[in-house]
């Protein structure tokens, strides 16, 4: 099966932010918990959340699509995470609209 460009992008971006190779992340059914344990840049669920957020922001910047990931159990395999990421991407890509939300600077009081 052909690997989509967005899938390659998500895999490499997430790996970069996690400080791991794609092989270390996406082979042999590695779970989220194992990814956190292996990563030199993550120590807990909040770090993991942030890595997903940065990956999502990168997708938004380069592909113009905002992906929101649901809370996933730590025993979810990375392949499942990737599938969820892609499904959310496809869903958002079909309905994505420009955001009218104010910037963080505008919200400061």
């Amino acid at each position, binding site marked *: 099966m052909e690997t989509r460009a967005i899938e390659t992008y998500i895999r490499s971006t997430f790996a970069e932010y996690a400080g791991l190779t794609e092989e270390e992340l996406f082979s042999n059914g590695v779970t989220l918990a194992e990814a956190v344990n292996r990563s030199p840049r993550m*120590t807990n669920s909040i770090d993991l959340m*942030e890595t997903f957020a940065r990956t999502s922001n990168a997708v938004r910047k380069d592909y113009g699509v905002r992906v929101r990931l649901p*809370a996933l159990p730590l025993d979810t395999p990375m392949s499942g995470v990737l599938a969820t990421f892609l499904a959310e991407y496809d869903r958002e890509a079909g309905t994505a609209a420009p955001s009218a939300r104010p*910037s963080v600077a505008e*919200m*400061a*009081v």
Partner: protein
Amino acid sequence: MTTLAAEPTAALAATGPTAAAPDSAGTDHPPVVLAELHDALTRRGMSLVEITWEQQRLHEARRWSVVEMLDGIDVARLTPLERAMVWNAGRAELTTKPGADRLERQADAECGRWQRSNPTVAAIMQACGTWSRYWNEEEAHHETAFNRLAALTGMEAIPDETFLEFRQVFPDDGMLRTLVLLAISEITAAVNYGQCRAAATDPGLRALFAQVAADEIQHRNYFLSFAKALVDSGEYQAKDAFAVAHLFLREDGELGGSARERVESRDTHVNWWDRLDTADSAAAFQPEASGRKEQLVCGALQKITGLTVRTAAEVEDTWMDLVGA
């Protein structure tokens, strides 16, 4: 020696009038939580001795007796719902001592780490670690009050194995994240106890729940004060405060507690909100409670970071913006 010329008036709980010129004992104004701690340590030049005095005065002003509080409860007439609420509260409160012990240790370590590079941050850490002794003592009141009452009403005893399990220590994280998590934990507890008070009919039990809820709000105010001071120092980033809030407010997040479809299994520590047994006390908790918690968490973020958010979705959006790519 720096005199206590500053006005410790800006309590986060909006308590206490503006202080006039303080007397030498610092007792001419009601004791308050210093909402602008970084400013107090820098521009106003308050010393740690002065800040500790304010903590001591507030602690003394809020002390109450568990023995006297329990004497005011008609134990024999408590309903099954009231007994279930008390039993749950007692178990939940077991997790606070390891939290306070850990905070004291982590604050002390962080104080040492910052002492040379940023003495103001070191002082904030020391103020936090010093206050943790009061927090620990006040939480001891909550734990023993509820567990004693549960025992008196013949509720299922808490085995030592459970006691030890609930005493496990939460793993360390960054100090700002830790303080925000503790603030949200206090918010969650305060709202829950408010709901318990409303559902209780025994006047003595209502008073106990009201007292504990008020204590938890005071603790929240301290956590917000320390967290804001760290952000004000410029050494800690607002994104970490938002990350913890998002962890709680997101769909299927921590705020859902034990009612979530799936609760993460851990062998490292117990999050009390994951272990509430609501089978017999569900009637106490009304749907508006989660909205109130969300509102209070958003308010906490505003106080800590200066950024205004009103909903869980806005928390997520702001956090995503702050994280960057």
